[in-house]
């Protein structure tokens, strides 16, 4: 699992994937509100990170999540 999205200099510089590093107090709903204005769209973030999230309620500090 590519848990270090910022690795590989040349490729990383070309990468336009949007990432969020989880901080204390973050939830997927809060991230959906921050990035989309709608907490109900948390499932979009969850689906985009199914390779690293088993449960939308379980995210850990420092984890890097894709924000579609």
């Amino acid at each position: 699992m590519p848990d270090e999205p910022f690795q590989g200099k040349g490729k990383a510089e070309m990468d336009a994937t949007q990432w969020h590093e989880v901080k204390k107090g973050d939830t997927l709903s809060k991230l959906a509100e921050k990035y989309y204005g709608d907490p109900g769209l948390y499932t979009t973030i969850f689906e985009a990170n199914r390779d690293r999230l088993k449960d939308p309620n379980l995210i850990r500090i420092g984890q890097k999540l894709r924000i579609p």
Partner: protein
Amino acid sequence: MKKILSIAVALLFALSLGACSQAKGPAEAAIKAAEDALNTGKADAMKYIPDQVKAAEDALKAAKDAFAKGDYAAATTAATNASAKVKDFAAAVAAKKAELTKAWGEQSQLLPNMIAAIKSRVDVLSKSKKLPANLDKEKFEGAKNGLAEIDKAWGEASNAFKEGGLADALAKAKSVKEKAVEIMTTLGMQVPAAAKS
């Protein structure tokens, strides 16, 4: 004595005329050779090294001007100079093509990534009941229109590349990149490092 002097003057005149016509021929040939070489390589070179083409054209013009004034030695030198400049075209064009191809390779990795990321964000925001802070409806509409523009412009840039218009393709890619950066910033997205330079 007077007769001898007249003969000597006439002889000198004839000799100088001979020398003159001897220099005229090579000058004429040098100009023709430079002109032919320039006309052969000019079309391709203009796309990649227009400054060098202009320098060769200037040298050829100098040769023609000198020729018109009867300064055949200067005309030959200038024409030889023009030919030397034209000789460098092939290597310079190849170097420029390699440089542009490398730049295109980078853009063709970066820009589709940026466009895809913007599309993805616009799709999600289109489903949102409310827009995020710092993004109002007008800005969002502007971003959507901008996305359609860069999508089309990227297609045009790719076609220009396929048709061999490297410089044109790169110019189009540059404007796509600038617009994509603008849209990403409006949407509050992270701009890839390669797009910042």
